[in-house]
């Protein structure tokens, strides 16, 4: 029996690792918020990222590219990610269903697609439009 090519590819297993880690993050995040407040959860958040950040520094040989624009963009991602993380933990603290909260918040590519069309002048395909429709239906179902 022939093994599918994707199963031999590194990217496939890295993607599996990402899915498992992100899934674990949402489950542990919910568990953590049963006792810890949302702001304190987000306060602790960067400390958990430090080992990975140090590993990245080591991989780069402690040399970083110099781009003010790139740095501003990436720091902005951290700030926005942090505010979003705070809101995610706040949603978990409400006692809402974790599966529904996680699925609803994982639809953020919806906003990215709209912004990419408006700002980067990217074009929407029919698949994207169908995705927008499914996202809208999901919103309605979650709100019922």
């Amino acid at each position: 029996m022939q093994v599918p090519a994707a199963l031999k590819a590194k990217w496939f297993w890295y993607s599996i690792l990402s899915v498992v880690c992100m899934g674990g993050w949402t489950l542990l995040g919910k568990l953590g918020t049963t006792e810890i407040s949302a702001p304190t959860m987000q306060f602790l958040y960067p400390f958990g990222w430090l080992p990975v950040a140090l590993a990245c520094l080591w991989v780069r040989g402690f040399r970083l590219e110099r781009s003010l624009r790139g740095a501003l963009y990436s720091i902005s991602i951290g700030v926005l990610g942090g505010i979003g993380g705070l809101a995610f933990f706040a949603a978990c603290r409400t006692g809402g269903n974790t599966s529904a909260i996680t699925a609803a918040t994982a639809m953020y590519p919806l906003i990215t697609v709209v912004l990419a069309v408006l700002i980067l002048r990217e074009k929407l395909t029919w698949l994207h439009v169908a995705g927008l429709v499914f996202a809208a239906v999901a919103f309605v179902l979650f709100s019922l």
Partner: protein
Amino acid sequence: MILPIWFGPAVVVLITWGIAGLLQKLSTNHLSAETALLGLVVGFFLLDPWLYPKESILMYSSRSLVVALLSSLLNALGAWALLAAMKNGGKASIVVPFTALYPLVTVAFAPWVLHEEITALQAGGVVCASIAVVLLST
């Protein structure tokens, strides 16, 4: 129609992470994935003065603190694995929808780990949301 109480914060997540998605694309035009990840951590720390807890962190159980730190470590590893997948030949159009399916892990394990049940409508919403993520990321 009464919206669930978590809906407001979830909309904030959608907007902030949605904008962050656009900035990810813009930042990696100028920086490597590793350097961009370091900038992200700097951004996280910039918020910390405003989030500094009024109460001592030690008032929380060590179990909750370990769970919180493990949660963020897993998130960082997940972000790194996504970037590593792209670096190792994965196409963005395949890797992004693939990795955005993490709610399926949550849905699969929430009944066991968190003892939560999902309603039929919510299950339908999860399916629609998963399809939407795949279609939007193609």
